[in-house]
């Protein structure tokens, strides 16, 4: 069964990099992309164009997004009983202590900084795959 991952990221360059990195790490991953917070919530709530969207096994969330920023999206996800069990990983360029603290306060499952070099980024994505999608036990997918 394919693994469904939702990537919430507004930079097309970063989206493509993440796709390439996941392709190298694990070919059975379906990577879905939402380019802002509003689209992300619509995907998760099966609204509008996303009425048939699968429930993601993992969410990768950037913090700085247009319309609704990542912190708000995180708050919505972890405040929603039907969504909060989905592991949500913050994947951002910001290393600011304030952002790290806020994210954990909003119950992010973990916080990762995007490395500057691509091979480090690829290695990080591989680590995410090895840990969250291979070793970690996730709840069985229920119909949302």
């Amino acid at each position, binding site marked *: 069964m394919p693994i469904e991952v939702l990537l919430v990221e507004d*930079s097309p360059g970063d989206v493509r*990099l993440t796709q390439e990195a996941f392709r190298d790490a694990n070919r059975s991953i379906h990577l879905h992309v939402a380019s802002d917070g509003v689209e992300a919530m619509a995907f998760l709530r099966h609204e509008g164009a996303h009425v048939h969207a699968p429930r993601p096994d993992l969410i990768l969330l950037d913090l700085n997004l247009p319309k609704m920023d990542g912190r708000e999206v995180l708050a919505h996800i972890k405040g929603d009983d039907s969504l909060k069990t989905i592991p949500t990983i913050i994947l951002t*360029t*910001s290393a600011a202590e304030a952002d790290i603290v806020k994210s954990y306060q909003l119950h992010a499952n973990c916080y990762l900084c995007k490395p*500057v*070099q*691509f*091979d480090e*980024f690829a290695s990080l994505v591989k680590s995410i795959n090895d840990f969250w999608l291979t070793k970690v036990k996730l709840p069985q997918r229920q119909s949302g």
Partner: protein
Amino acid sequence: MLPTGNKDAEKHLAQMEGRYRGLLEAAPDAMVVVNQGGEIVLLNLQAEKQFGYRRDELIGQKVKNIIPEGFAERLVADGLRSAADALAQQIGTGIELIGRRKNGSEFPIEIMLSPLESAEGILVTAAIRDISLRKKAEAHLLQKVEELNRSNEELEQFASFASHDLQEPLRMVASYTQLLSKRYKGKLDSDADEFIAFAVDGASRMQRLIQDLLAYSRVGTRGKDLLATASEDALQHALINLRGAIEESGALVTHDLLPTVLADEMQLIQLFQNLVGNAIKYQSPGVPRVHISAARNGRKKWVFSVQDNGLGIDSQYFEKIFGMFQRLHKRDKFAGTGIGLAICKKIVERHGGSISVESKPGQGSTFRFALAGS
């Protein structure tokens, strides 16, 4: 020589009185003598000039007329102490008040009080200094400090911009050239491989330069207050950060007992880390050895030495190496942007000290810097 008769005694007294009056008149500060009722009984020429009154206009007037507030309180406070106590304590205890001239204008003054025993009871002599100029200079200084703070804030904003917004497009260039290299290496011609390699290298170097520039500017903008810091703990912390480099090079790092100093702890750790890191990096064949020690210099300073048995430095470069982005070696021999020692220099100077090096090529180097003891 003691006077012998009554007439001589009177003459002597008159002479002394004349002498003291002369002293009073010649005093550079305004001198005003006040009795226990708060009335002015004596004043000098300077007092007339400062306050714009004629002498006869002030004698018998309340001192409150020229010093509206604060004098009476001080008088009471001093009255509560014995004359001896008051005298003993008065040196250096000038207080700032406001003086009022005859024309009603006010100006800042500093007064020093001393009690005077007399036949009429305890009198208080007030030496009054016009500190308008000093106050103006203080205000000017304050303004300069505010400007400096504003400038620092701007620098911080620029640094923040450089870190986030500049890094972003740079990350795209760096990442995609690396991807190109990965995906197409050997699939295009060798020229393409070489072009891509140069692009990848250039982007990586630019990233490191920006990060180093940020680190350099943050020495000032993110510096913390200097507090009592155990320099030995700071060194240990730096060595933990360097453990990879130490293990890889098999370096032997030793140190003497190190003192408590006034420092910003994070910056002290950075300082040790840069110096010890360099000592290990620029090694000569054999086991790299680094020794850190500190010696007292006078009552309040400690001079630290970081000594190594590495490559050494030619004396013509002793100043250059502390410049920003200055390197003595080709890029492929030793990694690094050349900012490390510039950061060390900035940190040491921020702590009020200076940094220098003693070295001979082939004979290792000793870097020395001074910090204030705690």
